[in-house]
């Protein structure tokens, strides 16, 4: 893993205007992605992880959403300020996405060949025959048996796991620099999930693709991600190397989250440690640390201001008043 950051997100803010008020879905998110790295974004519902993902590719529906601030630097260029035409050249080509539900991310009316060739022809300028050959090659790489025959099938003729493989093949067919995977295995069974994660690790290592993996599962993150961002109520509350964070979680939310996941390898007696309360309602969130009502170590200052970020070395940082001298 080299030091060049190919994607730098700085203070990204995406707000939605709804009937009930302003939803600050993403409220100051910053992180960096390096070449070949797998970055995990972990959060629960309402944390803003999916919106962050869509914001990077400037795919927020407007109205009601709007990216109101921040930069997304891909190389030297800010994706948020690019004209639509240029962004389209990047989508699917330099930055690819796969989504959670393989049932709905493929067009049920088109054959797989049509859908895959569309991307390849668009971005790589190959003719039909060459594009089809490339598509078949990618399907084989993704572990689809008899790809020359199956490429002409329709999506409903594939199972869930197979469809996800097709999605992976499609998204990697233009050899992108970054693959953004939004909960790619949440809808899959455990044994299939293991297959798909294995495949992703293998292919992205071979092609040198950097990956942003969005998930709610700490287990998946522990097994696949090099670095990690933990999100809560639209902000990154802790980030750093996966091993560092699991070994020594700094933010009370991260700690609580890790402790509350039941573990296969440790027989737990008694009660599970849990975080009390509900996920936050991000409509018209006041100026405070959004985690304070659920935090065992909340202090007065937590109710008044959002905490400053504190660095713990090795790129591990957390935003919490517990670590801030200034109160």
């Amino acid at each position: 893993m080299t030091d060049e950051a190919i994607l730098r997100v700085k203070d990204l803010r995406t707000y939605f205007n709804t009937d009930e008020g302003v939803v600050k879905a993403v409220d100051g998110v910053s992180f960096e992605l390096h070449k070949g790295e797998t970055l995990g974004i972990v959060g629960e519902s309402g944390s803003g992880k999916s919106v962050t993902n869509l914001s990077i590719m400037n795919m927020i529906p407007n109205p009601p959403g709007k990216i109101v601030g921040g930069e997304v630097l891909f190389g030297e260029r800010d994706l948020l300020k690019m004209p639509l035409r240029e962004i389209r050249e990047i989508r699917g080509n330099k930055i690819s996405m796969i989504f959670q539900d393989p049932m709905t991310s493929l067009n049920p009316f088109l054959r797989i060949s049509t859908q895959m060739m569309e991307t390849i022809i668009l971005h790589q300028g190959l003719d039909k025959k060459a594009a089809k050959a490339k598509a078949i090659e990618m399907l084989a790489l993704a572990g689809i048996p008899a790809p020359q025959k199956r490429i002409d099938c329709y999506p409903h003729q594939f199972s869930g796991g197979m469809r996800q493989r097709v999605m992976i093949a499609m998204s990697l067919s233009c050899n992108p620099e970054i693959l953004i995977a939004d909960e790619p295995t949440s809808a899959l069974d455990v044994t299939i999930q293991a297959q798909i994660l294995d495949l992703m690790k293998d292919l992205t290592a071979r092609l040198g693709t950097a990956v942003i993996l969005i998930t709610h599962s700490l287990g998946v993150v522990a097994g696949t991600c090099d670095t990690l961002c933990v999100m809560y109520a639209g902000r990154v509350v802790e980030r750093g190397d996966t091993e560092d964070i699991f070994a020594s979680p700094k933010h009370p939310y991260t700690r609580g989250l890790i402790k509350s996941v039941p573990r296969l390898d440790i027989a737990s007696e008694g009660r599970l440690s849990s975080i009390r309360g509900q996920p936050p309602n991000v409509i018209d969130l006041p100026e405070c640390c959004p985690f304070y009502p659920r935090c065992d170590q909340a202090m007065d200052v937590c109710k008044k201001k959002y905490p400053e970020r504190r660095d713990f070395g090795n790129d591990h940082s957390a935003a919490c008043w517990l670590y801030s001298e200034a109160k």
Partner: protein
Amino acid sequence: MKFPKVRSLRIGGKADAELNEFAQSMKPVSLWADAWRRLRKNKMALAGLFIVAFYVAAVLLAPILPIYHYEDQVISHANLPPSLRPAGEVMLETRVAYMRKMMKAESRTSFNAKEEADIEAMKADIKVNPDHKRVYVMGTDNLGRDLLSRTIYGGRISIMIGLVGTITATLVGILLGSIAGYTGGKIDNFIMRFVDILYGLPYMLVVIIMMAIFGKNVINLFVAIALVSWLTLARVVRGQVMSLKNAEFIEAARSMGASPARIVFRHLTPNTLGVIVVFATLLVPDFIMSESFLSFLGLGVSAPLASWGSLVSEGTATMELYPWQLLVPAISMTLFLFAMNFLGDGLRDALDPQSKNRA
């Protein structure tokens, strides 16, 4: 299993309530209140609502409104145009204008003695007869009856037919649709084939034949129309019930031993009400149009009762000479139908179940 007394709550209780304050909105908001809020934002629908409310108020309050009785005839006031001036003046004007036309046709330049005498008689009568002080804001018909009052009373009949017909059709439609949708199988088949057959009947023909056989009065009219209007609603309800009956909360009710009747009426129907309300508001114009068509054909209400349809029918006969006799009832009816349609559209959007059911 005993239910022990409440111990100190480890599980949440007060602390949880506080957290819930922070995390959730405070006011209980039922799905109806939510729909109302959305309806309010839709300007067209609101306008429709106000217009409909205005009409309903007008026809309900008709007996106490300061309007003339719809049967009141003043022959000398026949065919007067709408005006804010007293009827006497208007009558005088129209007569004089008419006499001038006759004069021109006969190539005369002044009134003859008889005409002069008539005019003087009219003027005298106007001073004496209190009837001539009446104001006919919408003009009169060929028997000197106030068109405004006839339109209002006509609206009464039309709207009543619309509402009562819709309510009946809705109840029958819900009943048969729910039974068909929930039980499925042979009963469903039977009911739906019955619906299909009724759909296939040439509706107007059937109604006309029925009116011819059983006589023309409001009751028969209403029965004839209601007989086939429940069909679409039954189909719609059936569709809704079928899609909902496998929902988990219905499974939960079944697992608790709820009887099918309870499931249909306590659990399924309230969840289909949204769609039903929308369809029902669109049925009302349907009924009114059918009734007015029948009345237009002469098969609807009979004199001296009026309905919008019969008024339009009468007005068509004289529309070249006295256009207001057609325009007033026609525009009134059209405005009401538009308003109902906008309201129905707005309701459909406001009650859309897709919206904010997910927290």
